Structure formats: C-alpha cells, structure tokens
C-alpha cells in the first residue's frame, strides 16, 4: 500500500519496486542537496541508503538542509539525517557514516559495498573529482548536482558509455574562480530543486528507465525559473580516467590536484606582522572613538554591523575604487601624530588583505592600519555574544 501510487505507474510496476528494495545507494554530503535527495529516495523505498558527511549541524544550514532541525544543532549531520529518515520510512536500511570523504575512506566504502548509484551532494571541487574517479574505476553511475545562489546544475556521469566529469572538465578550475555557498550564498529551494532531481535520476537509473540525464547538463536558473537542457560532448577516448589508456589508474591526492581543500570551509590566512594586529578584546575598548573600516560587502554590512563603523568593501579597496573618498575620510581625521585606523571583516581574512593594500596606498600620510584579529566572528565570541555570527 505504501508504494501503491508509484507502483501503478508503468515506469515502476511491481518489478520496479522490487528493484528499489534490492538497491544500494550512497549519498555523499548530508547538506542542501543530500537532504532532499535522501528524503525522496527513502520515501521511494530504496533498500539501503548510506549517507556520508563529516560536518555538524549549524544554524546557518537550516534554511536549506531540510532534514536538520533546531534540536539537532551541533549533532553530526548524518545522525540527524538518520533520525529523520528512519521516522519517515523504517523499512529502509539507512547507514550514517560520520567521516570525511577522501581517497582512502571513499575507496574503502565503494570497494567493500556494491552500490548501484553514487549521489554527489558535496560542496567542493576536490570531492567532485574524487567521486568521479572512484565511480569510473568501480563502474558506478554518478548523479552529480550542484547549486550556488540562484542557480543549479545537474547531470549523470559515467552512465552507459556517456562522458565522465573529467571528459567534460579535464582540468580543475583555478581556485580563485570557485565560489562556495558560505561566501556566495544559496537559496534553499534552489538546492531543493536540484537535490530532488538527483533523487529522480537515481530512481530512473535503478529502474532502468530511458531518459537518464547522461551526456546532457541541466541548467536551472531560479531567478527566472527556467530550465535549460544542453548537450554535452560524448565520452572522450583520451580521457585521463575513462579513456582507452587512462593515465589515472589509482586515486590521487585531490586537494593537491585542485589546489583547494575538500570542504567548503574558509582557510584562515596570516599575512601581517604582529604589530599590525589587535585582538578583538583590545579593539572593543577603543571602538567607540576610533575610525573603523568594515570591509565586508555592503549586503553583509546591512545585515549586521557595529555602530559607528564605516562600510568600505574590500572589493573596492582591492581594485582601487573610490579611493578619493577614502582619502577624504582619512584626511578629515588626520592629526599631528600618527593616526590609527582599524580594519574589520567577517572572519579576519579580507581585513588582513585590506590592511596590506591600504598601507601601501596611503604610505604618504601619517596613518597606521590595524587588522582586527578574527574579525566579527572573534568579536562575537570574545566580546559581544549577542553579535550575530553568520
């Protein structure tokens, strides 16, 4: 009865439902894509679903990672997902695996189990290449989805002679061209659309349906609610992994290959001297009568800011835009003695970059720029816990 509405469809029937029950799917990432994908696959009655994720649930996840709720904060995402999914369909064997997907862990998982489909709900380039390579080596179709801001993309790699990720994208993008959801943002329903479609493609692959999205890329634009289906190149006989003479014959170090890390966390930089920095605590004592430049983007400044600070985005400083305005601002405040200017951002990275730009640009006037260590995150942690962290 539970599955009757899908079983009466000619695309499924009794046989299809039996296939579902006998199938094993692994989902990498219990985030914005993995949550909706897992939800629909569990509802459909897939026999066994393994979910891999290393992260814990954070408040900023909840707008899109729909399996997690307020009481799950700080819990492992896979455990939170497990509890929700189990309560929805106790027939499905759900295996939560709390670990970081890297060459060693994924290789083990995939070779020790016979998965029918791998669902890529990861959030970074390195993991995408890793999953592609492991899928090709073990001959498993890869249902790949991604989302950022208002846009999403979907395709199936290495399916029935179709291209793999490396056939289409032989080389990884330069790291500075990659934006993650933490920096660029993403809308929940955009992730939800793509994650849901990943479940659909998975179901189609398992039931042997025609029309699997292989050799094609679906482009979803949430801002105009349009879908575009474009034709991709076929499998490349010279592909480094799925070609006739593959040059990649075992899993490599994907973080090194992509020159970026296999998570979407920000890596903190440390480019200034100690005497160019102040601690958040120290800063809090002087903030009321100091000149403070908050170098975050305007939309983030509008969301929350420390009163009295001035918004001057790093993107302008980096490009040298509106420098006359900054010059005026500084000249207004100038005194006989060296004047201190404090530079603040979200995490204390862009503010360091801003300080190193600004000290060169304004070396001709008696002003000294200080970075506020750890930015607003540190300020919230060490000074004012009421200040929102995002």
């Amino acid at each position, binding site marked *: 009865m539970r599955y009757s509405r899908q079983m009466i469809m000619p695309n499924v029937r009794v046989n299809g439902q039996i296939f579902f029950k006998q199938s094993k799917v692994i989902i990498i990432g219990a985030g914005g894509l993995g949550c909706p994908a897992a939800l629909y696959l569990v509802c459909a009655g897939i026999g066994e679903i393994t979910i891999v994720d290393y992260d814990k649930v954070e408040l900023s996840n909840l707008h899109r990672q729909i399996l997690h709720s307020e009481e799950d904060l700080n819990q492992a995402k896979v455990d939170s997902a497990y509890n929700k999914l189990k309560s929805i369909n106790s027939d499905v064997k759900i295996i939560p695996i709390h670990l970081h997907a890297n060459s060693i862990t994924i290789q083990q998982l995939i070779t020790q189990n016979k998965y029918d489909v791998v669902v890529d709900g990861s959030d*970074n380039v390195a993991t995408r290449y890793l999953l592609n390579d492991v899928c090709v080596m073990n001959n498993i179709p890869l249902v790949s989805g991604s989302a950022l801001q208002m846009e*999403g993309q979907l395709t199936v790699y290495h399916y029935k002679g179709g291209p793999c990720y490396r056939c289409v*994208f032989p080389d*990884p993008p*330069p790291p500075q061209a990659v934006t993650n959801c933490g920096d660029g943002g993403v809308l929940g329903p955009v*992730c939800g659309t793509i994650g849901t479609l990943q479940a659909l493609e998975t179901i189609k692959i398992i039931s042997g349906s025609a029309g699997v999205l292989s050799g094609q890329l679906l482009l979803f634009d949430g801002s105009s609610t349009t879908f575009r*289906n*474009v*034709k991709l190149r076929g499998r490349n006989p010279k592909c480094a992994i799925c070609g006739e003479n593959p040059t990649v014959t075992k899993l490599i170090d994907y973080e090194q290959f992509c020159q970026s890390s296999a998570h979407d966390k920000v890596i903190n930089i440390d480019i200034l001297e100690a005497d160019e920095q102040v601690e958040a605590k120290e800063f809090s004592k002087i903030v009321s009568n100091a000149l403070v430049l908050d170098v975050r983007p305007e939309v983030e400044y509008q969301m929350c800011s420390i009163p009295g600070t001035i918004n001057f985005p790093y993107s302008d400083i980096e490009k040298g835009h509106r420098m006359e305005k900054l010059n005026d601002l500084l000249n207004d405040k100038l005194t006989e003695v060296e004047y201190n200017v404090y530079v603040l951002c979200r995490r204390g990275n862009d503010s360091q970059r801003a300080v190193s730009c600004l000290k060169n640009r304004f070396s001709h006037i008696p002003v000294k720029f200080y970075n506020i260590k750890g930015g607003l995150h540190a300020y919230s942690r060490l000074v004012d816990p009421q200040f929102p962290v995002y």
Partner: protein
Amino acid sequence: MQKDWILGDLLIWLRDNLLKERPELFLQDNSVRPGILVLVNDSDWELMDTVNYPIQSKDTITFISTLHGG
C-alpha cells in the same frame, strides 16, 4: 560582417572589449579557462571543433561556469 569569425576570434574580442578585470579568469592559452563550458546553440562546443567553429548568423554562444556548491 566583414570576415568570417571563428569562436576563437570571439574569445579574444570578448577579452579585449568586454572584460575589465582579471581576464585570466576567463581565458587561458587562447581558450577558456578550465571550469567554463562554451555552448553553441545549447550544445557543447567540443561537438563543433571548439575555437575553430565558424560562427553563423543567429548563433547563440553561451559561457557557463561550473558550480560546485551544495
């Protein structure tokens, strides 16, 4: 049009006329940088000889940047 344009010409023209900052995030070695997919009328340019494709009147050329977030 005075001369036949191939896609490679368009890339150079775009770089010289439209891209104001960081052209290396668009072009590398006279082709698009890794992670950008070029489409001619909704088909991968790889199916059309990439930079050598002679652009026809009314063709739609699209540049897609791959997404990696989730």
